[in-house]
């Protein structure tokens, strides 16, 4: 298939960015990133600088790949990361616009690569259970309700990609943060520090410059791991409780 790519090029954080147009030949069994590999091979063969994009696992689990494709983070398919998208979703003659995730808290590094260290900072503020190595009791000492474990998993499945932030008109990180909070809260081991965790993580989220949530719901739609939106409501409830409880 013959495609026209309209790709965002930006030398570095300070430089001004602009779109560049490329015509390329792709095949339907290629993944989207393999299509970009083909583009980059072509650019390199012309002795120019290839399009920088982040990627690693190429199977939808590391959360590295981050681009907005025709206006949608991770492209058109539900529950799919960019690296899992295949060219059979497109047809010959299509023009595809490719941009980086855009959000104040994710500054552009180069082309399609953005800095998502703000997510690490949120986790460092409390996205853990305080247990040192070797202190743990036997794995079966505390039974965990099967449904609770399963719910915890549903939230824990977040890959930290940031599509939720990129999709949100306010650049809010509520889905990411609430997913971590609820993952831990659903398990007996994580309940103990719940109140402080909620307060500290939300505080850090605000400090990183993420926007407020106004219930647009775009995060839930674009999240490649289909992290449920009700995580946000649960976090809001916990936040209110935590503010009114003394430690």
């Amino acid at each position, binding site marked *: 298939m013959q495609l026209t790519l309209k790709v965002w090029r930006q030398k570095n954080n300070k430089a001004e960015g602009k779109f560049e147009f490329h015509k390329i030949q792709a095949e339907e069994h290629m993944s989207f990133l393999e299509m970009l590999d083909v583009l980059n091979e072509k650019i*390199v063969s012309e*002795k120019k600088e290839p399009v920088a994009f982040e990627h690693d696992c190429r*199977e939808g689990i590391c959360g590295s790949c981050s681009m907005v494709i025709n206006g949608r983070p991770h492209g058109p398919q539900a529950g799919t990361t960019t690296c899992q998208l295949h060219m059979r979703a497109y047809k010959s003659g299509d023009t595809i616009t490719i941009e980086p995730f855009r959000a104040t808290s994710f500054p552009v590094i180069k082309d399609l690569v953005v800095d998502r260290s703000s997510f690490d900072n949120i986790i460092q503020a409390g996205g853990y259970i305080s247990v040192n190595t070797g202190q743990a009791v036997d794995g079966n000492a505390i039974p*965990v309700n099967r449904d609770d*474990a*399963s719910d915890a998993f549903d939230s824990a499945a977040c890959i930290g990609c940031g599509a939720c932030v990129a999709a949100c008109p306010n650049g809010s990180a509520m889905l990411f943060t609430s997913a971590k909070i609820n993952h831990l809260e659903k398990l007996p081991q994580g309940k103990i520090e719940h109140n402080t965790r909620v307060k500290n993580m939300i505080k850090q989220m605000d400090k990183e410059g993420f926007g407020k949530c106004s219930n647009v719901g775009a995060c839930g739609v674009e999240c490649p791991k289909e992290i449920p939106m009700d995580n946000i409501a649960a976090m809001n409830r916990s936040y209110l409780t935590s503010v009114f409880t003394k430690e």
Partner: protein
Amino acid sequence: MKLDSKTPEGSLAEKWTKYRGSMNLVAPNNKRRLDVIVVGTGLAGASAASTLGELGYNVKAFTFHDSPRRAHSIAAQGGINAAKNYQNDGDSIYRLFYDTIKGGDYRSRESNVHRLAECSTEIIDQAVAQGVPFAREYGGLLANRSFGGVQVSRTFYARGQTGQQLLIGAYSGLSRQIALGKVKMHNRHEMLDVVIVDGKARGIITRNLLTGKLEKHAAHCVVLATGGYGNVFYLSTNAMGSNVSAAWRAVKKGALMANPCYTQIHPTCIPVSGEYQSKLTLMSESLRNDGRVWVPNKLDDAKAIQQGQKTAQELKEEDRDYYLERRYPAFGNLVPRDVASRAAKTATDEGKGVVKTGLGVYLDFAAAIERYGKSTAHTKGISNPSSAQIKELGEEVVSQKYGNLFQMYEKITGENPYKSPMKIYPAVHYTMGGLWVDYNLETNIPGLFALGEANFSDHGANRLGASALMQGLADGYFVIPYTIGQFLSNEIRTPQISNESPEFITAEKETRARLDHLIDTNGNQSVESFHRKLGKIMWEYCGMSRNAEGLQKGIKMIQDLREEFKKDVFVPGVVEEFNPELEKATRVADFLEMGEVMMRDALDRNESCGGHFREEYVSSDGEAERNDEEYTYVAAWEWLENGKPQVHKEELKFENVELKTRSYK
């Protein structure tokens, strides 16, 4: 060179406990004064860095990723082993030890493997305490499943994302230490050299990948947890960034690379679809619990299927060859990986492949769907269920067990595996070889340690499923925190190491020269094209089966390719900027040397064992034939600048298990 494994005295079951109890300790006030560098924050590195931080050491951790959470470990699917015997099915530490020794085809160190089995149980406890949402039974207790090469259920799992959940657990522990100031995290920093001062590893040279600037980092010792080198084959199931450079740089400074030819080829991956292919996707081994592997019996049928004129469903039972069940009745579809991969190769070599290229076999769930459907119908009290009902109920069960894997398959291939069988083929997956380490996980360079997939220590010539996560976490949480004390207890009077010594300055200069050379070459071929060529040579001559003639040819081809690379590689941009092409170039340059050592090792080892299959050494029924008389040793390679790597040997002594022909029949 004499290789001393430093295995402690005593009976196998007591070695670790006794050793741990009598080791030199470092007092808390001294720990505060000791700096430790940890390179790599996958399962092994993150668990080590956080635990060392908890103990009080000053830890500096490095990863080339933008966050520790993105390490390749995140992709592990199937599960993690532990000898908990929660299922009461006869499991024990000894049995896990024995299975691992046998699975590794009697080419690993007894003492290390036993320690691994001992630590396995604590890992599960630790992970549960961190909030890893393992699968549970209705009663709230932990669930298990089986993996290849064993007859008990000892694998713990979190749906098909066990690696992700374990890494998130380790990453959260690490994040806590970062917040507490005990670990200083350096994301997007790639180690490009290790610095040796007075014979001890005292630091590293890194490149800040955002700015391109070189930095010198000093510490009292250096821990490498930098993963495996499967990407030397270009196509593998490893993440795109996985590479050998950290380990290889250590080798260039005198460390030894042990058993480099032991490569694991995983039997269940999605077949290659075209030239543009950038990586291969694993379909978890857990699928072999319920999937049946087969090819057509008749060549005509295979041909028709390859040409798209027939489908799997059109073949009657008697026209199918469930070759694993036929050849290995005791283990059936759950034989170890090396055995399953070779059997697939045999079938496709005979022309019985089921994809266009001929390189693919079926993994079929129809029987499992029917079996589960019937039993669910029975439990639900549905009498005389229709076949449509059975199928629906069965698909539901299969979806609960493997839903995300089925989805993943469909996304990649565009085919629905509930309707027609999956097509799979072996692919490079894991490297058992790695830096040579002794019982303390220390390399032959004092103060340089290696953990996780980066070392060679526990899996012999073949790794069993769900054992890499176990090993990485055992090394990081439960071994290195003790054994590092054996080195550091002698360093408590050593003041902070300066990064301005001549050794650091020289290492930085050399690194800079290497980078400049790559850019200045300004040739005509892309880094990617060299990597692809190298991969093809490796796969052709050092892949699923090897022979002396091919290996000799391959060595020559790699040497030529390396020369061509030096003269004609093109790397755009400059050193001092964010430059992913330059990152790739340094890694491929190291792969071009590592590949040769792998081939030399394969050529030197005149036997077939585990993942190393030499066509010259097979039994009459086509199975691998070991030569215990001559090859019961670890081959540890030294890189000599004259271009002739030299092998050193560590004899393996088996005092507790009897060396047997590995049989899964």
